[in-house]
């Protein structure tokens, strides 16, 4: 999945990535926007910045996100 700035997303699952921390479990199911995708090489493995409704702005691994309309 390649995310771009402004994409509307949902945190759909727990990530398998090591960067996933227990408090992020609270984010599952929450909607938000991509505010800063990987700015250099569109790396699908990079952590990207998302702003989540009611939860603030965080950097998350991409495998826990899905694009919604």
């Amino acid at each position: 999945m390649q995310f771009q700035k402004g994409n509307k997303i949902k945190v759909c699952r727990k990530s398998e990535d090591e960067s996933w921390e227990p408090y992020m479990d609270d984010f599952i199911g929450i909607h938000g926007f991509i505010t800063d995708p990987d700015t250099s090489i569109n790396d699908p493995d990079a952590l990207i910045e998302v702003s989540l409704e009611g939860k603030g702005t965080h950097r998350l691994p991409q495998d826990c996100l899905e694009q919604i309309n």
Partner: protein
Amino acid sequence: MAICPVRNTLIYLSDLILSGSLTDPKARRICEQILHLTEEISEGAAGKDHLLAIDSLIREYLTAADSKKNLETGKTLEEMFSGHREVFESHIQTRNCPSHDCGKLAPSPCQMACPAGIDIPTYLTLIARGEDAKAIEVIRRDNPFPWVCGLICTRPCEMMCVRSRIDTPVSIKFLKAFAAERAMSEGAYKNPKKKEWNGKKVCVIGAGPGGLTAAYYLSLLGYGVKIIEALPVSGGMIMVGIPRYRLPREVIDREVALIEDLGVEISYNTRFGRDITYEDLKNEGVDAFFIAIGAHKALDLGIKGEKIFPKVLEAIGFLKDVALGNHHAPGKQVVVIGGGNVAIDAARTALRLGAEKVSIAYRRSKNQMPADSEEVEQAMEEGIEFSFLTIPKEILGKDGTITGLDCIKAELIQKEGSDRLMPVPIPGGDFIIEADVVISAIGQYVDDTGMEAFSQMNWTRRGTIEVNHASMETAMPGVFAAGDAVSGPATVIEAIGSGKRAAEAIDRYLSHIPQPRTPKIPVRHHMEPPVEMTATRKMTLKHPTMPMLNVDRRRTTFQQVELGYDEEGVRKEAGRCLRCDICRRCGKCIEVCRDKMGIDALQFGYMDFDHPTETDFRATEKKCITCGACAANCENKAMVLEEKDGRRNLKLCGTLLNSQAIQYCEACGAFLPSAEYLDFVARKTGDKAKRAETRLLCNDCLRLLSAKTNVETRPAGLK
């Protein structure tokens, strides 16, 4: 008072602290710490140790209490926490306040989007009113770099701006820069008062945005701060990564100088691990370390020829050289490889240094470019050429001199099992871009040289420092890290946000207070009354266009490209803010007016998050009868009905939606609804309402009148 005991305790504590009645500094400190912990319980950010920590703080308070009054306060606090223990516990466990009292101060979407959590609606309102210095004070509670960020922030706030659902987002970013510049020029940009030195010392490694931010908040809290910086300048990436035409050096210097004014000591040209060691610093009495070394090492291209030619540069190193004063053109024909902001910065810098032709080679198409669209546009205006769908294959040349970049044309293809478009080379699509310099800008990583001293610290597979993000603590006690060193290459505002979080965590660590379970959700500090204006003005204020330096000068000098709005433009722009901190867009007003009252006067399409429809504040007055049902049902008092100067005015966050003449009771002069309202009532009651009384009377007078009639019409015997 609220129903929720957590909220009540918060109100009690903040009133107590604000009242100034806590004259004993120790009592005050304890109360502030309890308030802090309670805030986190109220926000759902508390961990399981919070209540225990509060208990022990209260015990400390009671032991130290030297007056009857202090003792009583302590007892009250004890009762508050023990009497409703289960409510506090459920707030911590479920992170939910059943009575919704704890959500009342919910921050606006822009504030929530800001990685530093700046209280945006408050400072926009202050800027709209011309109170620039006060606006800067508000910003600096969460971000010590309002001027820097006003020029270069990636502005996630604007992306979330609710105003964009009406027309265009408020230009939040630049308004900050204007306020900072104005306050600085007037000598009103000042540091807040810092606390007395508490005898503790923190060493910050790296004078970038993250390190400087932590230094700022730590020194305000009373810590002695020493910054170790490898470069001869401060600012980190904002100084050596961002070119001067986007961010003038004076802006960084002035804001860094304010941090130095707080007593922060910066050792330049000092590389940690080489020029100064962990042991040296420990011997100096450093109690905690904060690592904010950024991500300054460039990734290799991995193509043929990369290591042969001296004129294969990496963008980060090139930009750093230029920033440190080397203003020689790298060559005549420059090719930059990459599609991010760094690639654009390198290309535009090369052009300004006198390169005759500069092009950017990027693997995907323009739409996929991760760089800011404004940056790309500005680069195009300046004559930078873009070669999209271009995969570099080999750097060509002879005798150590580059002659060109051998590339292959690509097409974007969706591979099976992937929803990502991948650039795939087109067979026979080889071509050569003539060049004598190749600059690679395909990403950076953290340079871990010298970090061996932090032996217990863990590194991630991405080569970044592993931390707990709620506290920015590494696995090594007393060692914290933030910024790009933790996230990998990210944004300035994220570094600032995490630097602030780290400062708070270091303060907790050194005060033996438990760390929060989750990163802090931005909190509103107070509520500024909204700017009042007519619905027409609110709707017709338009986003000003940014005046730009002319292209000739942009191609030849490092002068700032974006010249900034004028004062009138700034004040107007700030007035476009919808104050989403007051109105939470629950839509209850629309629902009441349309579905309950059957009037449907409120055309606020922007309130529907998922399916916004048209908004027009001016439309309200066409149907509205100023009944006030919308205001009576607005939980946040965003919608208000006020009676002033003979008018009934309906306002939404200061925007005057409707104004109708008040009528008066013909007997006592009390306020009565408007004629439009009484028409509405008369239409509903229809011809039944043929009253004996033709005067317009208030409720009380009507009762009085009917009581009198009752007496007067009674049969004689009963009088």
